[in-house]
C-alpha cells in the first residue's frame, strides 16, 4: 500500500481522482485539519437533514412496521371496489392448461415484486413484495415493503409464511424473474422455502396466443387488450429502482408510494388476465 492510502483524509479524494479522468492537480495534498473537520460536520448535517441520521419521515408511507425495516400494508378489497375494478373469479377455476382438474380460488397466490434493478445476481434487492389472495370471502392484498435493507430477512420470512399452505402461484414472468430473486434471498438468509410447487406464469399462455398479433406481450399490454382497461396515471415500473434509492438517500416517499400503487395495479391486472383465461 503506498503512502497516500495510509492517510485516511486523502483516500477518498485520491480514489475519486484516480477513477475519474486523471486530473492534473495533486490529490494527495492534505487539506488542513480545520477544514477537514468543517467538511465532516457539513456532511453530517446534510445527511441528517436528508433523513439518514436517524429521524426518518415514515408517516406518509402506508402500512405498519411489522419487523425492523419491514412495513406491511394489508387491505381487504370491499365487494363494491372489487366489482368496479373487475376483481372477480369463480369459486372453482378451470383453465386451459389444466385438463379436467379445477382449483378453488382460495388456493391461488398472485404475486409480484419490485426490485432495485434488473441486473440479476445476489446484489439485486427485492424491496417490495405484493401478494393477492382470496381469504374469508374477500380478496386481500398484502404488500411487504423493505423500508431499509436490514428488513430483507423479515421480508423473506414473510414470503415463507405466505407459501406455508402450498398455494398455486400466479405471476407474470415470475418463473424467470420474481421466483429466482426471492429464492436467492432465501438462500442468503438461510430460510428454507418449500420446493416450487404449481406455478402459473401467465406470460407463457399470453405469448403463445398473442405473440404474432401484438406489438409486445408486456403486462400492461395484455391488461389493456384482454380486459379493455387501459392503465392510467401510473408510474412506469422502470422507475421503481430510482424511487427506492431516492427514499433511502433522502427519505422522499412520494415516488415510493406511487411504486406501491403500481404494484397493486399489477396484481389486479394479473387477476383480471387470469379471469380472461378461466372458463
Amino acid at each position: 500500500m503506498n503512502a497516500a492510502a495510509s492517510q485516511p483524509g486523502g483516500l477518498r479524494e485520491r480514489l475519486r481522482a484516480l477513477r475519474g479522468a486523471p486530473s492534473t492537480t495533486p490529490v494527495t495534498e492534505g487539506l488542513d485539519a480545520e477544514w477537514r473537520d468543517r467538511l465532516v460536520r457539513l456532511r453530517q448535517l446534510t445527511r441528517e437533514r436528508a433523513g439518514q441520521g436517524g429521524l426518518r419521515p415514515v408517516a406518509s408511507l402506508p402500512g405498519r412496521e411489522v419487523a425492523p425495516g419491514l412495513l406491511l400494508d394489508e387491505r381487504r378489497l370491499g365487494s363494491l371496489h372489487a366489482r368496479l375494478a373487475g376483481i372477480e373469479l369463480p369459486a372453482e377455476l378451470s383453465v386451459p392448461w389444466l385438463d379436467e382438474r379445477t382449483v378453488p380460488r382460495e388456493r391461488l397466490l398472485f404475486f409480484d415484486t419490485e426490485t432495485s434493478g434488473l441486473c440479476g445476481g445476489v446484489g439485486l434487492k427485492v424491496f417490495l413484495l405484493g401478494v393477492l389472495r382470496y381469504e374469508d370471502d374477500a380478496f386481500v392484498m398484502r404488500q411487504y415493503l423493505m423500508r431499509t435493507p436490514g428488513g430483507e430477512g423479515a421480508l423473506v420470512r414473510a414470503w415463507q409464511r405466505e407459501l406455508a399452505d402450498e398455494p398455486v402461484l400466479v405471476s407474470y414472468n415470475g418463473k424467470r424473474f420474481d421466483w429466482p430473486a426471492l429464492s436467492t434471498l432465501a438462500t442468503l438468509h438461510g430460510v428454507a422455502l418449500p420446493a416450487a410447487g404449481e406455478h402459473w406464469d401467465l406470460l407463457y399462455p399470453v405469448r403463445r396466443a398473442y405473440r404474432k398479433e401484438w406489438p409486445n406481450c408486456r403486462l400492461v399490454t395484455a391488461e389493456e387488450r384482454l380486459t379493455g382497461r387501459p392503465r392510467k396515471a401510473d408510474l412506469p415500473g422502470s422507475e421503481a429502482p430510482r424511487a427506492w434509492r431516492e427514499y433511502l438517500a433522502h427519505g422522499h416517499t412520494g415516488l415510493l408510494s406511487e411504486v406501491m400503487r403500481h404494484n397493486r395495479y399489477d396484481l389486479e391486472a394479473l387477476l383480471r388476465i387470469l379471469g380472461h383465461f378461466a372458463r
Partner: protein
Amino acid sequence: MAALVARLRRKYRGCITGEAYVAASAGRHEAVPDAIDARLAAALATRGVRSLYSHQAEAWRTVAEGRHLVIATPTASGKTLCFNGPVLDAALKSQAKALYLFPTKALAQDQVAELMELNRAGELGVRAYTFDGDTPSDARQAVRTKGDIVVTNPDMLHQAILPHHTKWAQFFQSLRYVVIDEVHSYRGVFGSHVANVLRRLHRICAFYGARPQFICCSATIGNPGAHAEALTGLPMHAITESGAPRGASHLLFWNPPPVNPDLGIRASARSQVSKLARMTLKAGLKAILFANSRLMVEVLTKYLKDVFDHDPRKPARVRAYRGGYLPEERRLTERMMRAGAIDAIVSTSALELGVDIGALDVCLLCGYPGSIAATRQRLGRAGRRQQAALGVLVASSDPLDQFVVRNPSYFLEQSPEQARIDADQLLILLDHIRCAAFELPFAEGDRYGGREIREFLEYLVEEGLLHRDGPRWHWIADSYPANAVNLRSVADGNFVVVDRSGGKQTIIAEVDYSSAALTLYEGAIYMVQSVPWQVEKLDWVGRKAYVTRTHVDYYTDAIDYTKLKPLAEFGVERAGAGEAVHGEAHVVRRVTGYKKIRYYSHENIGYGPVNLPDQELQTTAMWWRLPPAALDRVFRTRFEALDGFLGAAYALHTVATLLSMCEPRDLGKAVGSGDSEWSAEVSAKGRGQIRGQGGEAVDPATLERFAPAVYLYDNYPGGIGLSRPLFERRAELLSAARALVRDCRCGPGCPACVGPILATEEGRSPKANALTVLDLLA
C-alpha cells in the same frame, strides 16, 4: 538432432555465444499410497501409472495432512496427477467437491478431457465439467448441482459464479479443494486482480461454512511459496524438487552476426530464426517458434509460408498462433499440432502455458522473452516425453537481449524471477470491494484481505452504491459491478476487427484496449495468419476497426511519444549533483503516426499521420533531476545534455526491468523537464528531440530554463508497486546502469547500452554523454 547441432556448431561458430547441455536424468519413484480408493488405483494402473514420482507422492502426503500447498516443478513433470489424485480419491470416498481454476479456457478443456479419460479407465463415475462462457445455459444448472469437479477460469469465477453464489450454495457447502494451476501466470495487474477474486471466494466459502484446501501449481519461478501465499492469503507448503525423469537437451545462445560493428548493428533476430527454422524443417524435425509480439508472429509466419506453403494445393505446414485469433481457429491449430499435421508453429506467449500440442523437437526463441522463467517455460515446450531437444535463444538488438546473450552465465546461474503482485493496489482493491459488497453485505468490523476497509465503504456510500443500515453496508445500486471489472486489462472494452471486404461484415479478430492505439489506427496493416488487411476506419467509441483485404509489400509500425508531469513528491533525496524523487505523476501517451516498412529489405518507405485520443494515466514514479548549473559545467551544448539524458533513461530502464523482475512494458520511461514544459524523445533520425506542451518541436537552445529529468514510472493507473522499491534501491540501480554503459564494447553507443545510434557524427558520443549524466547523479 545430433547432426543438426553439429552442423550449426560447424557453420555458425561466430554466432554461438554460449551452450548448455543437460544430460538425461532418471526419475525418483515411490509407491502409490496404500490408502487410496481401490477403483482409483485400478484406473491409474490401466493408464500405466504404477508408481509415483517423488514430488507427486509428497504432494499426496501434504494434501492428506490438510496443508495448503504449491507444486513448482518443470514442464511435463506430471503436476496434474499431484492434484487429480487426491481430489478424485476424496470425491470417491466422501463426495468432496473441487473447484479447478485455469488461466485459459483451452487449458480447462484439456483438463476435463484428461479427467474423463481417467474416469473412463476406472469407471469412477466422478462428474467433471467445464464452466465457461461456452457452457450452454441449459447445461449450467447441471454443472452447479451435479458437478463433483468444476473446471473454470478466474474470469468466470469473478463474473458468473461469485455474484450468483446462491445458485451454487450446494456446491460451496461441500467444497473441499480449490486447485489453481499455472499460478505463476497470475502476476502483475492480472495477478493482483486474481488475488482479490480469491479473497472474495474465501468470503463466500466462509458464508457457507466451507474451508477448502488450496492446491496450487506453478512453473519454475523464484518464489513459488511466497507468491502462492500472496495470491491466496494462506500459508503454503512448497514442493520444488522434481522426481520426474528428463530427456537430454541442448541450449544454444545465438547472437546474429554484426552488420556494422561500430554502431553495434547486427543482422535481425527475425532473419536468423527463419533461417534456423528452414534448417530444422529440412532436417525433418518439428519446431515451435516464439516471438515477443503479435506483429512479429505474423511476419515470421509469412516468411516461412513463403518457403514452405507456396503451393496452395498442399496442406499448410506452417501455422501462426496468438491471442486475438478466434477460439475455433486456435482449437483447430492445437488439434493439427497434436495430430502432427503441422511442422512449424509460430506463437506469442500464448503457447507458453501447458496447452497440449504434442511432441516437438526444436524451440526457437526470436528475442529474449523478458524473463528467465518465461524463457525456461518456452524452451520446455520442446522435448516433452523424454526425447532429446534443442533450444536456440536468438537475441534481438534490444539491450536486454544483448545483455543475456553476451552473459549466458547470467541466464544459466541466476534463479528465475519472482512473481509479484500488489493485491492492495488502490483501484484494484476498490473494484473488488465493490464486487464483494454486491455478493454479501459488509458488517461493522468485517475485514477484507486482512484490512480495515471502512473508508472504502464510506466512499461507496457517497457514490450511491452502498447504503448503511445499522451495522451493515448493503448494495443498492442497479448494476452488476463484476461486469465493469476486467481482470486482464487496464481499461475494459476490447476492439473487434471487422472485415467488410465484399460487402459483408465478418469479425476476424479481437484486440485489447491497451494495444488498439498501436495496431488499429487508420492506415495500419493488420495481419491474421500473415494475411494483410488494411484498417480503413477506426470507431474508437464503438470499439470497432473496419478493415478490408489488401495486397501490399509492407507492414506498419506505430510511432508514439510520452509526456509526463510530476504531481506530488512523496520523498526527495540528494543524488550526486542532483536529486532523486519518489512521487506521483500524470502521463500522456500519444500515437503521432506510423512508418511503412517493406518486407525483407526493411527499409522505411513512408509515413502516415495518426489522429487518436491521448491515453492518460495517473501513477507513481521515481525520477532524477539535475540543476541547469550542474549541466552547464560539463556539457558544451544542450543537445549533448539531452543525448545524455535519453541514453541514461534507456540504460536505467533496462537495468530497472532486470532489478524489479517485471515485464519491460510494466515500467515506463520518459525524459522531460521537471516542470513539464517540454518532453524529449529520440527522433526517427536518432537525435534527441524536444516537444513543447502542444507537441510542437522546440529547439532546446531557445528554452529559458533547461532542467531535464529522467523518469521511470509504473505503467498502470495508480501504480502497481514498482517505483518505490526502485527509489529505495536507486544507488544499486545507478551503479548497474553505469556499469552497463561503461563496459559496453561499442563505439559511440549501441542498442545494448544507450539505445540505437543511427548515424555517426564527428565528435558525437551519446554513450559518453549518458555516462556523464549518470556520473553526475552518483
